[in-house]
C-alpha cells in the first residue's frame, strides 16, 4: 500500500466504472448535449444494484500481477469487492459503506478500517487509490462543461467534452476531458489534469461487448502520466444489473465470510 501521491481523484468515472452506482439506466441518448454525454458515461455501469467479475492487471516497473475480482454494489453508497485469486490474496475483501472503507485480511482473520490518512494510498497495489473507491459524484454536477470537439478523429466520429471544476466543487482535478464515440456515446478516453493543468492520468476504454444486457467497453486501462510504462487494466468478464441482493451483503459479517 505504498503511497501514490498526486493520484487522489474525485474520479466519478473510476468509481462508477469499477463499482457501478445508482442512476437511470443508459438511455438511447438521442440528444447530444454535453450533459447527456457526461450522464451517459457516468451511468454506463450503473444500476440499482450490480454483481460481476473482473480481472485487474497491474503493471509497474518492478512487477506485474493479475487479480481476479468479484464485486457487488448497491446504490451509490455500498460496494463489496472480493479477491478470488491469486492464492496469497484469496478472500481478501474491501467493503465500502458511505465514506468508510474496511479491508478484510483472511490470512490474519482481521478486518481493519482504513484511516483517512491512507485514502491517497494505492488500492491493492493498483493505480487506483482508496479514494477512487470512496468518492462518488456526478461529473455533470461537479464540473462546468462544454463540447470542445465534434467530428472525425483517427477515422472515427467522436465528441470531446471538456470539464472544469465548479469553484465550490470538492474535486482535485484541474480539468477532465471526456472523449466518446459519436455513434453510441460510449467512452473512448478520459484524461485527468491536475490543478496546474499537467496531465495526471489517462483512462482508455476498449473492446465493446454485450454484458448484462448493455453494450459496454469491457476493458479499461489507467496510465499514470508520471510513469507512462505503468498501468492498471481492468477487464470486465461478467456483470448483471438490478439484481436482488441479500440484506446483509454489505455488512462487516459478510465481509469476513
Amino acid at each position, binding site marked *: *500500500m505504498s503511497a501514490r501521491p498526486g493520484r487522489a481523484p474525485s474520479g466519478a468515472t473510476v468509481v462508477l466504472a469499477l463499482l457501478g452506482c445508482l442512476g437511470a439506466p443508459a438511455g438511447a441518448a438521442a440528444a447530444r448535449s454535453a450533459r447527456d454525454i457526461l450522464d451517459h458515461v457516468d451511468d454506463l455501469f450503473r444500476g440499482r444494484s450490480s454483481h460481476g467479475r473482473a480481472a485487474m492487471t497491474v503493471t509497474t516497473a*518492478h512487477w506485474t*500481477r493479475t487479480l481476479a475480482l468479484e464485486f457487488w454494489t448497491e446504490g451509490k453508497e455500498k460496494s463489496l469487492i472480493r479477491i478470488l485469486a491469486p492464492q*496469497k490474496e484469496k478472500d481478501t475483501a474491501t467493503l465500502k459503506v458511505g465514506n468508510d472503507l474496511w479491508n478484510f485480511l483472511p490470512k490474519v482473520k482481521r478486518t*481493519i478500517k482504513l*484511516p483517512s*490518512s*491512507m485514502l491517497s494510498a494505492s488500492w491493492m497495489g493498483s493505480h487506483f487509490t482508496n479514494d477512487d473507491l470512496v468518492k462518488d459524484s456526478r461529473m455533470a454536477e461537479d464540473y462546468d462543461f462544454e463540447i470542445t470537439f465534434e467530428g472525425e478523429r483517427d477515422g472515427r466520429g467522436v465528441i470531446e467534452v471538456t470539464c472544469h471544476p465548479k469553484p465550490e466543487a470538492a474535486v482535485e482535478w484541474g480539468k477532465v476531458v471526456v472523449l466518446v464515440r459519436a455513434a453510441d456515446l460510449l467512452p473512448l478516453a478520459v484524461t485527468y489534469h491536475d490543478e496546474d493543468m499537467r496531465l495526471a492520468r489517462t483512462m482508455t476504454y476498449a473492446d465493446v461487448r454485450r454484458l448484462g444486457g448493455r453494450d459496454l467497453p469491457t476493458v479499461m486501462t489507467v496510465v499514470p502520466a508520471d510513469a507512462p510504462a505503468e498501468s492498471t487494466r481492468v477487464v470486465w468478464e461478467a456483470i448483471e444489473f438490478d439484481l436482488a441482493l441479500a440484506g446483509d451483503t454489505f455488512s462487516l459479517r459478510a465481509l469476513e465470510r
Partner: protein
Amino acid sequence: MLLRFAWRNLWRNGRRTAITLGTVALATAVLIVAGALMRGMMVGALANATNLGVGEVQAHGAGYLVDRSFYTTVRAPEAALAAAGALGAGAAPRSYGFGLVAHEARSAGALFWGVDPARERTAFDLARHVWHGTFLGDEPAGGVVLGKKLAHTLGVEVGSELVVVVQAADGSLGNELFTVTGVLEAVGETNDRSAAIVHRDDFEALFVSGGRVHEIAVNGRGRVPLDVLEARIAAAVPDADVRTWRELLPVLADMLALFDAAMWIFSGIFMVAAGLGVMNTMLMATFERIRELGVQKALGATPLRVAGDVAAESVLLAVVGSVVGTAVGVALSVWLGRHGIDTSRLGGDLSFGGVAFDPVWRAVLVPRELVGPIVGMWVASVAAALYPAALVARLDPVRAMQHV
C-alpha cells in the same frame, strides 16, 4: 630568592592573601566548570542525535533520500558493515517500508524499520530508549516496537496485537499479526509518529523484500575521525550515497555552529567578569600596602625592586590560586560529567529541531579548554597588581607613608 621573599611577604597578612588566593581559585574553577557544562550541552545534543539512531555516517542507494523508493538499495551492505567494523565503529543495516497498522477499530500509517536488533543494541542507543516494555530480541518473534505517538494513536500497550498490511516488493499484499513488545520514549517527532521497528527477518517475510537494505548507519561514538569514517565507508560501497551527520541533520549542524559561537562570546564575558573580580581584589590588596611600600622605598629600595616584589607576589598568588582553582574545577567537572545535573524536574521532554535532549545535563571537560581560564587569570592577576605597584614605585616615599 625573590620568590622566597615574596612567599614570606604573602603570609605577613594571611587573611588578605587567603582572600586574594580564594578569589583567583574561585574564578578559575567557575570558568572551568562553566566551560565544561557548555561543552557538555553541545556534545550531549550531538551524541543524542547521532547515538540514538542516525549515526555519524549513513550509506544509501543513490537517490534513495530523494524518493525513498523500496527498490533503491545499498548493493553491498556487508562491505559497509565490515569497513565500519575494521575501524572499531558500530554499524547497523536497515530496511524501510510503508504500511498500515491497526488495532481494533483504530489504524494508522507507519514506517516499518527492518533491523538487526543485536547490531542496533551495540551501535546505537535507541534500544535503551524504550519507555515501556523491551526492545526486540535477537531472534525474529513477530514483535514490534512502536514510536510513542503512534502507540498512543493506536491505543496500544505492551502485549497488544497489531494487524499489519503492506504492499510487498512483488506487488502482493503482505499482512501479518505482530505483538507490541515495546514503546519508545520520545525520540523526535518523525519517529514518535511513524516508527514501527521489527526484526529484519520478520520484515523480510512481510515485505517479501529479498534482502533489500536501504540504509547502513555507522556510529563510531566519536572514536573515529568523521572524515576517516566517511572515506572508508564510501570506499567500501562505491556506488552508494554516503553522508555524514552534518548533511543528514543540517538543523543540528547549524544549531551547534551557532552554539559554538555563542559559547565563545559567553566565555569571553565570564572571563572579563572573573578577571575584574580578581583585579579588584589585587588592587585593594596592593593599595592597602602603599604605606608599607613607601617605607621600603624610604629604606632605599629602588622602584624596580618594589615593583618586582609586588609582581613576584602576584605571580605566586596567581599560580597557587589557579592551581587550586583548576584542581577544584576539574574535580567538579569530572563529577558533573559522571553524575550530571538532572533537569527533568525543571520541565518536560526537551526537544529542539527534532533532536531530543537528555534530561541529565553532563559536563564534558576538554583539556585544551583549560588553557583559557588559567592564562586569563594569570594575566588579570599580574596586570592588576603591577598597576598600583608601578604607581607606588614612582611615588615620593614620604607621601606614600602618609597615605591613608
